[in-house]
């Protein structure tokens, strides 16, 4: 644990500088701040429900809408979180180590979120810093947080971050050591020729580095490139909620008001998780989270509305049930999480679809298990 000031720029900020390279072998850290889940439960820290707000589905790409964010803040949520990355920007920023978003909008959102989080005394979590989530983008967001804290003379808090870039030679050693870098869907495995032609490798974090930093007692976390849902799921898992509900919470919150209607981006939504369900509520006065808007969001950014793959497993929404429980709130039950089956050397092995080039689509009943992963034909929200 590195503790120090912020080089004079933000003396108020207590720095818990923590480099988490999730693509390397898991590291064990032991500090005085470590509170195990079991200990936390014994201390009665577990809450019957937990509420997280998300003000922006791609922090920096366009500014969050302050009105709904402040409405959400007034409800005293337990976490404030947002994803700053997106596939929308294409691969160039990843390779070139650049942002796609203007600095002014990044600072706008980070400032509003930091001020609200410190006022409430709740953690703030950002994933995929600066669009690409490369190491330099993480460092840039960390500096922005320090600068904002100094500008507002915020009381000391603990700031943590992790990096997502992976060394090319580590990947080469894996390939040569008989541990292939498996292609997703029908893509081929990574070859050394392609590795040689690669300028930068930016891995995708699951919940693990976020949970570690929360256990370290961090008040503000800046993450390198991350799975969208992991940013939010980590907070719920850290507080002891089940995997299925936790990953669903992340899945439904990650794009903020995209899960609400009528359409209007960059408005805040709130997700409340219990051991049984997730309730999602629109915070903007003109929006509602309806069965159709929340269920519809499940179709977004994935091959089908049932399966969300993250590092470490798959969120299975095949048996999700949606219910309008209040004017602006939809409750979701029935989600499940299927851990990745093969976890050799601590590296989750992603499920691989049968290559559709060699296997015709089928109308036969399909299951959601990895072993039988194949082209899928569904109707009416479940396998037939």
């Amino acid at each position, binding site marked *: 644990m590195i503790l120090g000031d912020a080089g004079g720029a933000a003396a108020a900020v207590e720095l818990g500088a923590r480099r988490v390279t999730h693509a390397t072998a898991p590291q064990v850290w032991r500090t005085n701040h470590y509170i195990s889940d079991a200990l936390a439960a014994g201390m009665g820290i577990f809450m019957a429900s937990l509420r997280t707000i998300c003000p922006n589905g791609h922090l920096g790409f366009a500014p969050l809408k302050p009105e709904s964010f402040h409405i959400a803040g007034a409800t005293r949520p337990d976490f404030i979180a947002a994803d700053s990355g997106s596939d929308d920007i*294409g691969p160039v920023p990843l390779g070139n180590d650049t942002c796609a978003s203007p600095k002014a909008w990044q600072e706008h959102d980070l400032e509003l979120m930091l001020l609200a989080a410190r006022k409430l005394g709740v953690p703030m979590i950002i994933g995929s810093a600066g669009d690409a989530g490369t190491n330099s983008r993480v460092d840039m967001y960390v500096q922005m947080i320090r600068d904002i804290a100094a500008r507002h003379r915020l009381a000391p808090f603990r700031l943590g971050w992790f990096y997502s870039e992976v060394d090319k030679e580590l990947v080469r050693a894996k390939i040569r050591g008989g541990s292939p870098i498996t292609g997703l*869907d029908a893509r081929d495995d990574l070859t050394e020729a392609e590795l040689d032609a690669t300028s930068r490798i930016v891995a995708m974090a699951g919940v693990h580095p976020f949970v570690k930093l929360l256990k370290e007692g961090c008040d503000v976390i800046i993450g390198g490139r991350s799975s969208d849902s992991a940013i939010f799921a980590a907070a719920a898992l850290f507080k002891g909620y089940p995997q299925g509900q936790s990953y669903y919470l992340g899945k439904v919150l990650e794009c903020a008001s995209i899960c609400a209607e009528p359409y209007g981006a960059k408005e805040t939504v709130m997700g409340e998780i219990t051991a049984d369900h997730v309730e999602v509520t629109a915070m903007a006065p003109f929006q509602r989270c309806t069965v159709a808007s929340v269920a*519809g969001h499940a179709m977004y950014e994935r*091959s*089908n509305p049932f399966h969300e793959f993250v590092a470490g497993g798959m969120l299975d929404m095949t048996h999700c049930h949606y219910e309008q429980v209040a004017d602006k709130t939809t409750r979701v039950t029935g989600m499940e999480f299927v851990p990745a089956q093969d976890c050799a050397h601590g590296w989750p092995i992603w499920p691989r679809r049968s290559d559709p080039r060699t296997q015709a689509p089928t109308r036969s009943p399909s299951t959601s298990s990895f072993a039988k992963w194949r082209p899928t034909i569904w109707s*009416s929200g479940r396998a037939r």
Partner: protein
Amino acid sequence: MATYDMVKRSGALTPTSVCALLNADPQRLTDFVEYDPAYAIKFTILRLRRSGSPGDGDIFDAQQYAPFLDVEIDVTN
């Protein structure tokens, strides 16, 4: 909702018909879902080249819908 039910009942959109409309080899179709909770039909077809790679003209694959504008739905069922 009524529109969705009409389209679904008509059978105008099937794995076979969407591949034919897009001139895509049916072997590339990985998913086809009639998703009642959202009143939507979703299907996924594997790309011919990676998103954002040289020569890719549609990073989001959001410009593939034009052939569907001409689909006729039989609403007499």
